[in-house]
């Protein structure tokens, strides 16, 4: 049996009565009070997630930019210091080794925040491709990461607004941290990268400011409502960025791993597309359920905002258009769904789901 890793905030979660579950080799809080109340808090006020299980890789040196530009799908050249970018680590067939956010600390130093499950494989992937003048280091154990998300998150933390996908050095109640204007919920918010030894104090200050602890359960329902893909479910080494709807983070004009294959798929048009859907009947789609006519559910859950089942899955490209009716095999029972435009839940315009 594998020993589960614990974040620097493990004791805090236990003290709060969190339900702890194994996730990507870590013992993580899936919920404190309940997935649905935590979800609603993030949509209406502010919640804090311990996402310290995520990996942090640093790439440094005069050739760091050149290395990353050749392995990441998005154009790193668009970034100045203090900018962040959503991007993909791709393989030779255009598959997705990982999706991540890259932060430009200086022209010669970059931080990559990667999925927990891929931390080691991403590190190995980069290490194997290192060039003279670039150094890749795994600094994950030095940091904790707290995601504070929700419409009142900035007010609760006493932070001013700033453009999305930027970051700055700052402090919360005297605790120095890197304040990243990023998130995985579709809400305004920040992700705070803090030295591991300061994590408990920062957590306490954030909670004292009226931010509600939220677990991985709510993190999953929140991200699925806004159709953010989850690596390992919706995207992976066998799925390409174009079919996954992530062509917008692929700079096909530059040279990077798998670019020829991605250009070819874009030119020919993908055979399958990752579609988002809302159930028309009372049923909850789950990962792995077959979709009639080809494809299967890659992520599925109950949407607290829509109060019905929602999901994503790969379907033949012709069946990925909004309003297409899909039939999902829910443990032997055919249940109807309809394809919707992403995101499934949109704050300004209200939900696009329902019927």
């Amino acid at each position, binding site marked *: 049996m594998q020993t589960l890793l614990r974040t620097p905030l493990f004791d805090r979660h236990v003290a709060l009565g969190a339900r702890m579950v194994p996730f990507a080799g870590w013992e993580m809080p899936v919920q404190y009070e309940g*997935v649905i109340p935590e979800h609603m808090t993030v949509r209406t006020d502010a919640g804090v997630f311990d996402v310290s299980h995520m990996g942090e890789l640093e790439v440094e040196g005069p050739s760091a930019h050149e290395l990353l530009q050749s392995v990441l799908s998005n154009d790193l050249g668009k970034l100045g210091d203090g900018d962040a970018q959503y991007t993909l680590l791709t393989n030779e067939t255009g598959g997705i080794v990982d999706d991540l956010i890259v932060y430009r600390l200086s022209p010669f130093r970059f931080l990559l925040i990667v999925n927990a499950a891929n931390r080691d494989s991403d590190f190995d992937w980069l290490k194997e491709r290192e060039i003279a003048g670039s150094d890749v280091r795994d600094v994950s154990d030095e940091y904790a990461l707290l995601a504070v998300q929700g419409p009142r998150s900035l007010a609760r933390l006493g932070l001013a607004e700033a453009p999305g996908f930027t970051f700055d050095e700052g402090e919360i109640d005297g605790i120095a941290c890197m304040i990243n204007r990023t998130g995985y919920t579709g809400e305004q918010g920040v992700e705070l990268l803090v030295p591991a030894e300061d994590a408990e104090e920062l957590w306490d200050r954030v909670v004292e400011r009226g931010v509600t602890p939220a677990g991985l359960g709510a993190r999953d329902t929140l991200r699925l409502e806004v159709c953010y893909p989850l690596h390992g479910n919706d995207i992976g080494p066998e799925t390409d960025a174009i079919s996954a709807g992530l062509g917008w983070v692929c700079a096909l004009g530059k040279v990077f791993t798998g670019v020829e294959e991605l250009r070819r798929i874009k030119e020919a048009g993908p055979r399958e597309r990752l579609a988002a859907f809302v159930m028309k009947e009372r*049923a909850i789609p789950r990962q792995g359920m077959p979709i009639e006519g080809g494809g299967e559910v890659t992520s599925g859950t109950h949407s607290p905002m829509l109060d019905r089942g929602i999901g994503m899955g790969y379907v033949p490209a012709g069946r990925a258009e909004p309003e297409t009716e899909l039939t999902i095999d829910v443990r032997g029972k055919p249940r109807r769904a309809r394809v919707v435009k992403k995101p499934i839940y949109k704050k300004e315009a209200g939900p696009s789901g329902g019927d």
Partner: protein
Amino acid sequence: MAATETYPDELRYHPEHDWARIHGDEATLGITWFAQDSLGELVHFEPPEAGSTIAKDASYGEVESVKAVSDLITPLSGEVIEINQKVVDAPETVNEDPYGEGWLVRIRLSDQGEAESLLDAASYRQLLEEA
């Protein structure tokens, strides 16, 4: 939302965390406080069809929380004569009141003798403690 932990004396229990309230040749079925607490807030109840026959120890439907699906195991055999529409419409009723408003189905018993094999509240509580 959540009810406090109780296991009423007047009910009979199945080790799969289901209860039966027997009255004459009929019984009302539901899931225990422990079951709803383990699942978390329920968001879906997939009931059997009214009029269908269900067999002791077999699945007669499903309940789902955001994260999990659980089979409903009937403690007793019989014919489904009523489904609790309130739980179909608002599954969280089970979390709020698992032995009252959150009942799931009513059945007409096909073998009243089956009740003897079920646990009383004290035995069920003991089973939970030993788990």
